[in-house]
């Protein structure tokens, strides 16, 4: 279905509606990166569908000149699933936030991943409820003071990667709003990968949770606090590329290359295509300050998708079916003349 007459441009993807996110909100950058990625996918504009739930990020579909569906709170995965099953030719993108996907929509989120419906879920994780003006979310760290936790929360947060992998996710990547280049690369891969592709975007809310990822964006220290993963490459990081990750005693460990006899050969090579999700879970769960936070594609394995299986099964059944129309159906089984 590729359109050879006209290569899509970013401009083609912008709708006539002005983006109404706060100035400085990370959402602007995310949209920018997604638009840059879409034009690389060789998919005609009319085949893109953006689906969202409720929250700041969920306004996203209105700003895209593609098909779009702004749903109700938490239900974007379900709506997107229906669209994709109904027409597997479409490229379906779900835009959601930490409250939308992991609180009110948690059930749909995990079941969509479990079924492996071929949609791309972009999870804007700002660890706060922005649209309702500053309440804690299921990803807020324990102790966060917000309007509904004036003395600090007393609950443990969800880590999206852990949830995705626990639900048998086939594709999980993490990026940060400010790194448009990395984000664009990841969205392209997510769009190409046939599975429920979940991308967690660490996104800054300038109003209610500003600089929650400041430790990762700090100019001087960010290279020491994040690690950008590449498939088949050693997990090396640090300003001077002198730090690495090794796996010892079934645990990940940060080491300094050149110290204690550690050489580059000892460093763990990232394999995003490993079927067994154990190592991916450990990588997804690397938290600052004990570890650098992993960005990039953590897990990307192949599997049959739900939408393919449903439609393939139907074709097989139809090919050898005795019942070809409703008249056949009505007259099937026990019937008699009166």
């Amino acid at each position, binding site marked *: 279905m590729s359109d050879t007459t006209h290569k899509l441009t970013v401009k083609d993807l912008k709708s006539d509606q002005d983006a109404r996110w706060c100035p400085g909100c990370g959402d602007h950058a995310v949209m920018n990166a997604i638009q840059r990625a879409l034009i690389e996918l060789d998919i005609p504009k009319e085949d893109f569908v953006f689906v969202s739930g409720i929250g700041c990020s969920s306004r996203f579909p209105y700003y895209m000149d593609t098909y779009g*569906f702004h749903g109700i709170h938490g239900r974007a995965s379900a709506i997107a699933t*229906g669209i994709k099953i109904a027409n597997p030719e479409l490229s379906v993108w779900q835009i959601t936030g930490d409250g939308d996907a992991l609180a009110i929509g948690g059930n749909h989120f995990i079941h969509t991943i479990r079924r492996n419906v071929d949609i791309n879920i972009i999870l804007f994780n700002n660890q706060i409820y922005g649209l309702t003006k500053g309440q804690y979310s299921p990803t807020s760290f324990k102790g966060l003071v917000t309007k509904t936790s004036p003395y600090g929360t007393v609950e443990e947060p969800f880590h999206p990667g852990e949830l995705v992998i626990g639900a048998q996710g086939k594709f999980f990547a993490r990026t940060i709003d400010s790194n448009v280049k990395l984000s664009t690369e990841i969205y392209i891969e997510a769009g190409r990968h046939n599975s429920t592709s979940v991308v967690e975007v660490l996104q800054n809310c300038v109003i209610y949770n500003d600089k929650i990822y400041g430790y990762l964006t700090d100019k001087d220290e960010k290279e020491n606090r994040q690690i950008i993963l590449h498939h088949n490459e050693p997990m090396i990081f640090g300003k001077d590329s002198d730090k690495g990750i090794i796996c010892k005693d079934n645990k990940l460990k940060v080491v300094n290359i050149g110290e204690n006899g550690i050489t580059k050969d000892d460093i763990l090579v990232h394999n995003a295509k490993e079927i067994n999700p154990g190592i991916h879970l450990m990588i997804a769960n690397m938290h600052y300050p004990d570890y650098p936070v992993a960005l990039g594609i953590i897990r990307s394995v192949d599997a049959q998708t739900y939408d393919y299986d449903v439609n393939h099964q139907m074709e097989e059944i139809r090919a050898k079916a005795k019942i070809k129309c409703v008249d056949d159906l009505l007259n099937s089984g*026990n019937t008699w003349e009166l």
Partner: protein
Amino acid sequence: MNKKTKVVERDEMVIRFSGDSGDGMQLTGTLFSNTAALFGNYMSTFPDYPSEIRAPSGTVGGVSGFQVHVGHSKVKTPGDLADVLVSMNPAALKANTKWVKQGGVIILDVDNFDEKGIKKAGYDSNPIGKEFLDSFMVVEAPITSLTKEALKDIDLDRKSILRTKNMFALGMVYWLFGKSLDYTENFFKEKFRNKPMVIEANKKVLKAGYYYAETMEALCPYNISRAEVKKGRYRNINGNTAIAWGVLAAAEKAGLNVYVGSYPITPATGILEDVALRRDLGAITFQAEDEIAGICTTIGASFAGKLGVTTTSGPGLALKSEAIGLAVMTELPIVIVNVQRGGPSTGLPTKTEQADLWQVLYGRHGECPVVVLAASTPSNCFKYAFEAAKIALEHMTPVILMSDGFLANGTESWRIPKMADYPDIKPPIVKEDTKNWEPYKRDNKRLARTWALPGTKGLEHRIGGLEKDALTGNVSHDPENHEKMIRIRDEKVEKVVNFIPDLEVEGGKEGDLLVVGWGGTYGHLITVVNELREEGKKVSLAHFNYIRPLPRNTRDVFRKFKKIVVCELNLGQFADYLRMKYQEIKFNQYNKIQGLPFTVIELKKNINKILEDKSNV
């Protein structure tokens, strides 16, 4: 068939099979009704089973029943009281004696009337021979021991042998009604294809029961001759299957495929199961993680061009409320089927009721109008499912179709329609690059917007739950636009009145009393009204299938009667709805809310009371 005894001709009879929920009574009843149907009788059936998967065996709570009404002419209900009751144990007798006609036949498996069984059923002592059974003809058959005796040479374990005893009872009933064993024997061959021993055992026991009834000389056989109804090909159908097939029929006429997104819930699950079988007709079913995902995937599928259907019962409908609002706002054509059961909360899951009407009409936030239809017989669930889909697709609106536990599980004989006799359905799907197209532009006749499917070049657009601009569909917070849209959505539903038939009155167009009903009570109400008319009373029936909007002539129909009584299985929800619409008219009520259908007897008594009440004008 060797019939020495004199045969009694009857126009219609009611047979009730009852036993422990593990005794296979639903199967026994189904085999009997299919046999009678193949012979040419007309019928209506109703299963009555407990909601526990397996209540303690031998207790009244665990009794499962299946009632079948067989007729020489069109029977419209499963019958109030049984002419013949088969009772496999004391608990079944205890639960069902009140449902047997005076003078009726009760066949008992006396082997189970031991001390333990009697106690479990809650009798103080053996009921056989007691006075309360004097008015019935009790047949004491040692069914269990005769079953064992019949299979003494068959190499089967005890459990498998005992499992066939329902076939002994069925054999007896076949003799009693002069029915052939062929259908049932063929059923064994199909069902136990790889178990020749089980086929043999069931056949043996079925025959043993048949010959036992013949030789015991305690029973007098009946004959109900072939039905004289409109010529044609017939089948049995229950309401759930009819709804499944009705939406498939609508999809075929619309050139679309069906998508059903549902979560299993009693008594609606059968619809999902029946559509799931129909991959051959291009239907997709999606068993969702919950009721909300059921409807939300349906909305998504509808956006992408399927005939979207979601099926549920009252508690599930409550969970879907918010998403119904989304479908109203996005003006997508989905069908929501609500198979009502006893409520509130988990209530009586396996029992029937009509108490979801207000929920269906009003149970959403905001001004949130939808079209509401109600099927009224198991077989016309087909017609109204078709109609619900047609209205949804042509008017671009969600439609709620009401059924209930009685229609869902009840079966009746159905003259098979031909799809050529059904109208085409024309959804307003727009083509590529349509000039001057706007997502919320609408036609004047129906106020329906058009349907631009993702993948259509040049028609990219966004819809969603936020208020829409009346033309572009863009988000609009403009106060006047909001009111305009509220009124458009309301008027769109009201305009459906121009596309539905007038309300029909059965009986005279004017008279002393108009009986009003809606939904699944039709069979009982028409039976009563016909009986009263035969007695010379000026009584008619107006039964509603279109609930919102109400047929255009409704007021005119009401005004021609001196009194009106609205009969429904709730506390008066439809009566109140009518009062709101027709404030000058007085509506009497007759209500029952026991999880059971009406009986003709109680309806007649109460309708007569209203008819005769001089103070009530």
